[in-house]
C-alpha cells in the first residue's frame, strides 16, 4: 500500500514538475508568470487525445503532435502577445502579464467552443497492462509517465548546464542586458524559451491524459494553479526548485488522499506555499533578491 502510493505520488509529481518547469523557464527570461501556460498545456492534452482516442495513432506520434501544437501556440503567444510589448520602451512588464491572462481566457473559451465543457475519454492503448511485484502493483502507464518525465527533466538539466544554447538561456535569465552584451540575441532567446516551455506543457498535457484517463477544458486552470504553487514553493525561476517542488507536491497530495481527508487534496498545494513562504520567503531553491531584479 505505502509503496504503491509512493509510486502514484512520484508519477503525479513528475507531471507537476514538467508543468512547473514551463512556468519557471519563462519566468527566468521574462520575469513574468505566463498565465497562458495552463491553457497551452490543456490544448496539448486535447491534441494528444484526438490523436490517440479518435485517430488511433500510436502514443509516440500523439506526443509529437501535442509537442508541435503546443510549441506553435507558444510561438504565436510570443509573436502576438509578448514581443510587441517588449519593443515598447517604458512598457511595464506587468503589461505582458496581463497580455498572457488575455490569451489564457481566449484559449479556454476556444477550447469550450471546440471541445465542449464535458469530459473526454483519453484512452491509452496499454492502460490495462500492469506488473505485480509482491503486493505492489505498477501499471505500465505509470512507468511510462515516470520515465518520460524523468527523461525530460534530465534532458533539460543537461541542456541548460552543458550546451552553448542552454548557457545562453541561463545568461539571459540572469541578466538580459549582460547576455546581449555577450552576443546573445536575447529577443530570439526569449522566443525560443517560450516555445520550449510550451512544448513541455504539451508533453505534460498528454501525460495527464494518460494518468487520469479523461480531460476537459478546465484542466488548464487547475494544473496552472498548481504549477504556480510549485514555482513559488521551489523558488521563482529555479529549475531544480520546480523539479523538487513538483515531486513533493505530487507525493503529499497522494498521501493526503490515501491516509487523510481526501477532500483537502487541492488545498495541500496552497497550505504548503503558505508554510514555505513563512519560513523561507525566497522558496526552497530561490535566491534572496538583493540586486533589485526578480
Amino acid at each position, binding site marked *: 500500500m505505502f509503496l504503491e502510493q509512493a509510486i502514484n505520488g512520484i508519477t503525479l509529481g513528475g507531471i507537476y514538475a514538467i508543468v512547473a518547469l514551463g512556468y519557471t523557464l519563462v519566468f527566468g527570461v521574462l520575469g513574468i508568470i505566463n498565465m497562458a501556460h495552463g491553457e497551452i498545456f490543456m490544448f496539448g492534452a486535447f491534441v494528444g487525445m484526438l490523436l490517440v482516442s479518435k485517430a488511433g495513432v500510436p502514443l509516440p506520434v500523439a506526443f509529437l503532435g501535442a509537442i508541435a501544437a503546443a510549441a506553435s501556440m507558444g510561438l504565436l503567444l510570443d509573436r502576438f502577445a509578448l514581443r510587441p510589448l517588449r519593443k515598447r*520602451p*517604458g512598457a511595464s512588464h506587468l503589461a505582458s502579464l496581463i497580455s498572457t491572462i488575455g490569451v489564457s481566457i481566449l484559449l479556454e473559451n476556444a477550447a469550450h467552443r471546440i471541445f465542449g465543457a464535458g469530459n473526454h475519454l483519453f484512452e491509452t492503448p496499454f492502460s490495462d497492462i500492469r506488473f505485480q511485484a509482491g503486493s505492489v502493483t505498477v501499471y505500465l502507464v505509470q512507468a511510462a509517465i515516470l520515465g518520460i518525465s524523468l527523461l525530460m527533466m534530465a534532458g533539460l538539466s543537461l541542456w541548460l548546464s552543458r550546451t*552553448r544554447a542552454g*548557457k*545562453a538561456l*541561463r*545568461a539571459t535569465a*540572469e*541578466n538580459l*542586458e*549582460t*547576455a*546581449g*552584451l*555577450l*552576443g*546573445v*540575441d*536575447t*529577443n530570439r532567446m526569449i522566443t525560443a524559451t517560450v516555445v520550449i516551455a510550451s512544448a513541455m506543457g504539451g508533453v505534460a498535457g498528454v501525460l495527464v491524459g494518460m494518468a487520469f484517463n479523461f480531460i476537459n477544458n478546465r484542466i488548464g486552470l487547475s494544473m496552472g494553479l498548481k504549477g504556480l504553487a510549485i514555482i513559488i514553493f521551489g523558488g521563482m525561476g529555479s529549475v531544480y526548485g520546480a523539479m523538487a517542488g513538483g515531486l513533493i507536491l505530487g507525493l503529499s497530495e497522494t498521501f493526503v488522499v490515501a491516509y487523510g481527508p481526501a477532500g483537502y487534496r487541492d488545498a495541500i498545494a496552497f497550505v504548503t506555499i503558505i508554510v514555505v513562504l513563512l519560513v523561507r520567503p525566497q522558496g526552497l531553491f530561490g*535566491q534572496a533578491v538583493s540586486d533589485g531584479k526578480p
Partner: protein
Amino acid sequence: MLEVRDLETYYGNIKALKGVSIEVPEGAIVGILGANGAGKTTLLKTIAGVLAPRAGAIVFRGEDIAGLPSHRILARGVALVPEGRAILSRMTVRENLEMGAFIRRDAGIAADMERVLRRFPVLSGRLRQPGGSLSGGEQQMLAIARALLSSPKLLLLDEPTLGLAPLMVAEIFDIIREIHAAGTTVLLVEQNIRQAMKVSSRTYVMETGKIVMEGPSKDLLREPRIRAAYLGRE
C-alpha cells in the same frame, strides 16, 4: 576607427546626451572624464547598443552601427565592460568566460582561454566557483577577461577601477596597457583621472551630456581648468 557624431540619447523625455561627438583612432587609448551624471555611461551604453540613440551617427570602421542591438555590435568587434562589471553571478567563472566567447565559432577559442587564464591566474583557481563569489577586483578581472575572449577590436571600459583597492587599481591600469599593447583600441571612462590621463593619448571632458573640452591628454593635464575642477590643487 570609431566616430561618434552629434549623438543624442534619451531616458524617456530626459535628454542624457545632447549632441556628443568623439573620435577614437585605431590603436589609441582615449579617455572620457567628467562628474557623475555627465553622460559618460550613457555614451558607452549607446555605442554598445544597450541604449538606442534618437539622433546622430556611430560610425565604426566605415559602417553606421547606431541603433543596432548589442549582440550585432559585439559581432562587429565592439565589446563593453559595463560599470558594476555585470558578472553572471549564478554561473561559474568558467561559464562566464565561455559566454565571453559566445559569438565565436573559430578554432582558437581554447587557446585564447588558456592565454587569458595565464594572464589572470587568480581566475584559473576558481573556475568552478559561482561568479558572484569573487571579490570586486577579481570580478573586474573576470569581466575584462570575458570581454577579451570575444576578440574585440575596440574595448569600451566603464569605470573599471571603481571601488577597488589602490593595489588593484594599479593592476587594472597595467592590464589596460597590456591590452592596448596587444593591438586593441580602448575607450576608457574613469574616475582615477590622473592615471586615466597618463595612460590615454586623448581625453574628452563631459559635462551634463555634452563634450566641453577635448585634446591630447598631456596638454589637458596642464590645463588650469582641468586641474581646478578634476585634479585638485597640489
